[in-house]
């Protein structure tokens, strides 16, 4: 009996963690990701000076963000409802969705491993990363209003 109670409470706990609020969590990560990309973009557009150390820090933050983006935890079954722009295709093709996210992660890692030495180098990297944003949003996000 005691075992059963423990088992049930553990299950309930696991459930509450998994379903804390994946929609809010993933939106927060995406917002952070956009902000970081924005910092890089300001440098590319010449609104801010190129500072190699600051750029590397931002790229590292992007990588950390991508590592936190666990698609299975953040997009559990049933989290396609409510205030979300996640497309149903995520759950129809979870493997494809994960592959897109993995590609972004790999590209952030590559950028951190060979950080840009000047604005042109950063521009090329931001084009790659921005292309990843678009590639995923093309299939897996749907505008609702």
């Amino acid at each position, binding site marked *: 009996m005691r075992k059963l109670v423990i088992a049930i409470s553990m299950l309930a706990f696991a459930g509450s963690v998994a379903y804390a609020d994946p929609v809010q969590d993933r939106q927060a990560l995406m917002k952070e990701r*956009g*902000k970081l*990309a*924005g910092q890089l*973009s300001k440098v590319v*557009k010449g609104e801010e000076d190129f500072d190699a150390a600051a750029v590397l820090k931002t790229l590292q933050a992007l990588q950390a963000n991508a590592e936190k983006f666990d698609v299975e935890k953040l997009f559990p079954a049933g989290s396609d*409802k*409510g*205030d979300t*722009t996640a*497309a*149903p295709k995520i759950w129809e093709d979870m493997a494809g969705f994960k592959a897109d996210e993995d590609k972004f992660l790999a590209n952030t890692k590559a950028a951190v491993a060979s950080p840009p030495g000047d604005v042109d180098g950063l521009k090329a990297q*931001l*084009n790659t990363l*921005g*292309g990843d*944003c*678009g*590639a995923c*949003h*093309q299939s897996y*996000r*749907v*505008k*609702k*209003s």
Partner: protein
Amino acid sequence: MAWLKKLAGAVVVLGGAAAAAGWFLSAPVRLDAGTVAQLGPGDAAKGKRIFYAGGCTSCHAKPGAEGDARLQLVGGLELKTPFGTFVPPNISQDHKDGIGAWSEEDFANAMLKGVSPSGEHFYPAFPYASYARMKPADIADLYAFMKTLPAVAGKAPDHRLSFPFTIRRGIGLWKLLYLSPEPVIALPNGTPDKVLAGRYLVEGPGHCGECHTPRDIAGGVKKSEWLAGAVAAEGSGVVPNITSDGKSIKSWSEADIANYLETGFTPDFDSVGGAMVEVQRNMAQLTADDRAAIAAYLKAVPAHPNGYPARKPAS
């Protein structure tokens, strides 16, 4: 019962006349000789710009193609709409399956009049209602550029439409209502060249209004709500309002719009999504001047409230 006979006779005569008129009015109309004469020899280098402005590859490349494969215009994408599923055909230079055997005049009739070399109407899923506003010289340049692209064998599947949209001849009546070379937005004398250039790119080759404008029941764009956004005709969700009244770009500067078209980033660093991803890739191939012109025109079009319903609150 003589009156009944008379009535029946009148109905038959009227019906016959209506049918004859309908048949006459729905006939495919080709370009007049004057327009054909304006085509001239095309310049392939210039045509490349028109190719990207027109976004041909977004619909006619093999779905999912990347890199140079996007220039293999073999068709096959499925556009699922309320009228049925349209499948863009092979427009590569293959002589049998593509358009390699078409003359320049054939190509111009397709682009400006929506008429095939065999004299059939094309469905307006092929956005000739926008392309009809293009300059003949640009059509000639585009033709020359497309001649440089590879020939790829393979026919795309047929469209799968529901009745009555299966009757191609009916498109002739649709064209009477919606096909015109006139600009959508009349701009006053003294409008800067930049805005006029943007109008040409947006309303003509860019065919932005085909997705960003709501359609009426017959499938024509509502010019009174030009670029006000719409429920997506193909796929799901909505296509944003890109007039100055739209939440999406109201606060954007012209530079923001141009930068978005170049990089795919919005001013608040969201990224381009949905079908616009392909469009943005094409827009990135244009010159900075072309993107600036598009931005200037978008700031000049009349503001409209959203052409789609408000989002339902989360349940």
